[in-house]
Each structure stands twice: as C-alpha cells, then as structure tokens.
C-alpha cells in the first residue's frame, strides 16, 4: 500500500448512499476499510440522498435541491467515494445536466464531479490497487449492475480484486451484464415485469453453480436476494466490498444473525 508518511494522505468523503446507510451499514464500514487500505483517510460527513429517485421520477426541483446539498457537504474532500455504481453515476454523469446554462454553478459542479468515484473503480483506477488482503472460501458469481457498467465502465475492476481473494473461486453466470429488473422505483411500480426479469436473473445465478452472489449496488442485491429467497434458494448475497474487506462472516443480505452472535 502507498505510504502516507511523505505527505498528507488523501482525504476521502464516504458517501454511503441511502440504502447502505439504512439497510446494510456493514457495507459502509467495508468501504471505509478498503479506502483506508488504499492509503486514504476516511470521513463520513452528514448526508442524505443523492437525488436519484427524484431524478428518475421526473422531479427536477427536488433533485436539484439534493444535488446542491450533496455538493455542499462533500466538495472540500480530495475524493468522494460511493459504494454504488448507480449513485456514483447519478452524481458523476447526471449532476452536470442539472446545472446546464448556469455559469455560477457549472465550474463548481464539474470540479466536484471530477472527484467522485464508485468504490471499486476508485480503488483500482485511482489508487492503483491490484490486490486485497482477504479470504473467502466460496464459489462466487458477480452481477454487473447497469449504471456502474454502462455509465462508469466498471467491469474488470471488481473481477481483478476478487481474483486476489484467497479461497475465492469466480464462476461467471450467463448474461452477467443484463439488468436484474430492479430499476429503482420501477420494481415497485411494475412488480410483475420486475419479477419476471429478476426470475431470469435468478436462473442465471443458479446456473453458475455459485454459492455466493456479489455486485456493487445494494438495490440490485436486495432485489436478487429477495427473489432467490422467495424461491427458497440458498445463495448468499453480499455487496462486493464486504468480501474485499474480509467481512465475509457477517450474515448475508436477508439472513438472520445467529442467536448469540
């Protein structure tokens, strides 16, 4: 790991995302562990939502207010790191659209967006990380979440780091890059269609023969975990950061903590 002794280590603002903040805080701690392992200091400033649900529901006023709030909370950091491709994509690729034609804002927004990264791409592309010190005994398959894949080009980075996890065997599923049917509010607005899409995804996950499913977005993970569990399938579903940070012993998504632990 790069030594922080020569100069002050970069200061990273961790934007946890609503879902990690509320549903699975352990992903936030895993992200912090990894960012520190990459030679950075981590802080978690007060934060709420990046505005993506409002943006994709057509509510530009709320989106804009949340974007301004997020920029103000994070713009003093050297980097802003997000354990989600869709929230990072929202900020990095869509925030500038909200300020078009506003010269007072635009340079500030662009400076800010240039510092924003999805967690795994930050570790690999920005910090040059090629391996992690973690162990996970399992056969793992990885789902490429759409926004991370298509807006941010995240595909090789998680596989590179997973390849360095001791005991981990990666088994690719068919159509790993096809949508899981989550789609934010889509999954509750059109449950039947969403259910049909995630059913196909579940079949592909099972076809991989993996005992563990990983991805970089908690929304997609909750959708796939929920479907696999509804089908009675025993596949552990986790955020990729948990495995990379060596937190593979935590109960998987939707699995009860054992009594006494």
């Amino acid at each position, binding site marked *: 790991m790069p030594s922080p002794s020569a100069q002050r280590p970069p200061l990273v603002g961790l934007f946890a995302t609503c879902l990690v903040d509320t549903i699975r*805080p352990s992903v*936030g701690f895993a992200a912090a562990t990894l960012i520190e392992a990459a030679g950075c200091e981590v802080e978690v400033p007060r934060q709420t939502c990046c505005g993506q649900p*409002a*943006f994709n529901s057509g509510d530009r006023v709320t989106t804009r207010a949340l974007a301004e709030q997020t920029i103000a909370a994070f713009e003093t950091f050297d980097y802003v790191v997000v354990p989600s491709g869709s929230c990072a994509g929202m900020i990095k690729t869509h925030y500038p659209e909200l300020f078009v034609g506003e010269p007072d804002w635009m340079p500030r927004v662009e400076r800010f967006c240039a510092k924003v990264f999805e967690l795994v791409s930050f570790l690999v592309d920005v910090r040059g990380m090629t391996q992690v010190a973690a162990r996970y005994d399992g056969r793992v398959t990885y789902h490429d979440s759409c926004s991370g894949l298509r807006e941010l080009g995240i595909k090789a980075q998680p596989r590179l780091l997973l390849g360095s996890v001791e005991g981990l065997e990666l088994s690719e599923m068919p159509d790993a890059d096809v*949508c899981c049917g989550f*789609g934010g509010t889509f999954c509750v607005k059109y*449950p039947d269609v969403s*259910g049909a899409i995630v059913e196909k995804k579940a079949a592909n996950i099972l076809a991989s023969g993996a005992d563990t499913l990983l991805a970089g977005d908690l929304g997609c993970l909750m959708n796939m975990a929920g479907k696999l569990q509804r089908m009675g399938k025993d596949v552990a579903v986790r955020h990729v950061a948990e495995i990379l940070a060596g937190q593979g012993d935590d109960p998987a998504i939707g699995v009860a903590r054992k009594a006494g632990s």
Partner: protein
Amino acid sequence: MSVQITSPRFKDNARHALDDAPLQAALSKVGPGFIGRRTAARDLLPEFDALRDSARDIKNHTLAHLDLYLERFEAKVKEAGGHVHFAVDAAEAREIVTRICRDRGAKTVTKGKSMVSEEIGLNDHLVACGIEPVETDLGEYLIQIRGEAPSHIIAPAIHLNKDQVEADFRRVHTHLPPERNLTEPTALLAEARGELRAKFLAADVGITGANFLVAETGTSIIVTNEGNGDLTQTLPGTHIVLASLEKLVPTLEDVSQLLRVLARSATGQEMSVYTTFSTGPRRPQDLDGPGEYHVVILDNGRSAMLAGQLREMLRCIRCGACMNHCPVYHAVGGHAYGWVYPGPMGAVLTPSLIGIEKGANLPNASTFCGRCEEVCPVRIPLPKLMRHWREKEFERHLTPAPVRYGLGIWSFVARRGWLYRPATDLAMRLLAMAGRAKGRFASLPLAGGWTKVRDFPAPQGGTFQAQWKARKSGRAS
C-alpha cells in the same frame, strides 16, 4: 379507424403477456437470436462505432436543415415526374392515399412493410372505403389475417409460433385442400407465396414505406429480405410511398453510410437481401415500373418534436436494436406497449404521437439499464428521453398518486438532514427488531409492490451514519 390504444392498460397487458405461455416461448428466442447476430456483425467491422458517430452526425445535420432537404426532395421527385404530398396528421395521410386509390379505381392494394401505415391505421381505413389492402411482407401478412398489430418494428409476427401460423392458414385459406401437409416451415412459406402471387398481379396500387428519402435525387429506398417490396412497387400501375418526414437524408453517399449500420444493428446482416431504390415513375426506356409515383410525407407531431427536447428521437432509423436488447421487451413483448411502436423507441415516440396522458406508462416501464442507448446505431439517448417524459408527467401532475406521495415524503425528509438522520435511524432500529428472527420479510406494509414478487431483507439496525459516529467517538475516548 386506427390501432386500438391500450397503453394506459400496460400493467394488465404485461400481466397477460407474462401468463401467455406460447408468447413467452416465442420471446425467449428474441434476445439470443438478435443480440448474438448483431454482436457478431459488429465484431467483424472495426469501424462500427465510428460509423455510428457518422450516422448520428448525418441525421443531426439533416434535422437541422430539414426544411431545405424537404424542398429539395420535393423538387427532385417532381423533376422525375412524380408527386409529393404533405400530410399534417394521420387523417390527412389516409385521405391522400385513399384519394389516389379511388382516382385509379383501385380495388386491391398490395403493401410492403410500413410502420407509418400502421401509425395512421391505413388498412382499416382502406377496408372501410371498399378497397382491399394486402400485406405482402410475410410477418405483416400473418398479423393481418389475425387482425393484430405488429409486435416488433422489423419482425412484426415475432410473437407467433409455427403451429399458430398453420392454424391461421387453415382458417383463412379455405379454398386449399384441407389434407395438405403444413408441418414444415417451407410448406407454410410456399403457401403464403402462392396466395400473395395472385395478389401482386391483381393489385392496382402498391404502397410501400421508405427507409430513406434522398434529397439530392428524389429517391425513396426500402430495405427488405423477401423481395415483396419490389413486387409491390413495380407491378401495379401506381406506387405510393408512405414515409414520415425524418426519413430524409441529403445524399446517396449518406445513405450508403447509414445502410452500413442499419442491417447490422437490426438483424446482424451486412446488408439486407434487397436494397431497392425508386426514383419517379417508369420512364419510356424502362422495361417495367409504375406509371405513377407518389410520395406522401407525414408529419403527425414530428415537427413539434423537432422544435423541442425530443429532437434526437427523430434520428431513429427503425432498426429495432433497442427492443432486441431491452429486458422489459424480452419479458412482455411488443403488444403490451399498447400501440404501434414498442420497446424503448416506442416508449419515447408513442407519448409524442398519442399524448403523454395515454402514453405515460411506457417511459416509466423501463429499468433505465441503458442497454438500448448502448446499441443504438444513431446514438439516441433513449433513457434520457424517457426521463424527459417522466418530467413532463410530473410537471403536469399526471404521476400516479402513490408514487407522488411516496416520493414527496422521501423528498421532504431527504432535504432535511436534521430530520433524516434520527428518523431513518429510529425506523431502521424498529424494522430490524421486527425482522430479527427471519432476517427478511415476506410482506411489509406499504411495500406490496416489492413483496409481491420477492422478500425484503431486514435492515441490520441503526443507520451507518449513527454507527459511524458512535464508533468514532468510541475511538476518540
């Protein structure tokens, strides 16, 4: 009469489609077939993505100077002895076509595949006027005899299987011996060919669409794989081309570039089997061709799109790649979209043509996975344009109440950090306690849309922000 609009019932349509076993069997082949062939064709052409940029630029340039190219096209068609008609809306286009047919005393009209014809509901109108329209593209013929709309813009009968086609042929072709063997697809094809041959020869007018209208020469171009378009436009005495105004392209050179991305994106072919150029009526030295050549150019709301934020949609060259790669289309097929144009391109175009009030479901029924934009040969940002419709819907208070209220509460809380942090922390602690035993919920109040098809994971308890703060102060002390 036009195609029945059932887009407002998208959810019901989708439910029925998901329960329709033959349809699901047909849809399961859409993705693998089209996607694999497109990918293979793209991989054989290193400059494919550069050609997509070029295709986008050609269409952008044309749209920026559309008035100029329309006038140029009209002048060139007239020069070649043809006629150009401009139709503001579907009704006017129907009237123009019907008038030409009546003036020729037409009883039978053969038709090449045309989505614009579907858009204006031409067939029903012709029938009402006592003129028999005969679709000559095999897929269009199949759905015509079933009384259905196309379910795909380039493969209109992709929702059907062989057994259904055989049953329809036995139902409709009653003059043929009932004991005939139709088990082989080639037998079905031969029967359709035999039926259509008589119609080709009997037709008084032939109507085709156009993939491109070339301004510099006044040429209309169709690409087909069956050759039916050629017979449709050369055998009858009159040829009517029905095209919407964004089909304009400046030059033949431009067309040759667009053709290189069209078939590859659509079917994975390098070129369609037939690419047919028509310029004016038959000349004295020509061996064949129609005596009269008409081009009907349809606006139907497109000039309003040209002036607004949906202009980029007018680049569309109707390859179908967006729906071929769409997880929602794969799940429910084209009919669920409830009008003429399905899939992502339909989700953008349909509200422009039938109104956002009726079309609102379509831009919402997308996961925004972005695969459509990734494969579009003219790089239309389809998710962005669907989001544009969601904004229009929200601005006009058309968003369904549960979505609006849910979003309103979330927005109110998310905009107030002092409220968000304690409220989420408390809510998650309670939810975690409720779900502690099982780790998940099979049903949850206010989350019926989620738990209808999947479990909801119980939160770990307490928010990340609260836990982080506690851990930091623990470390500091």
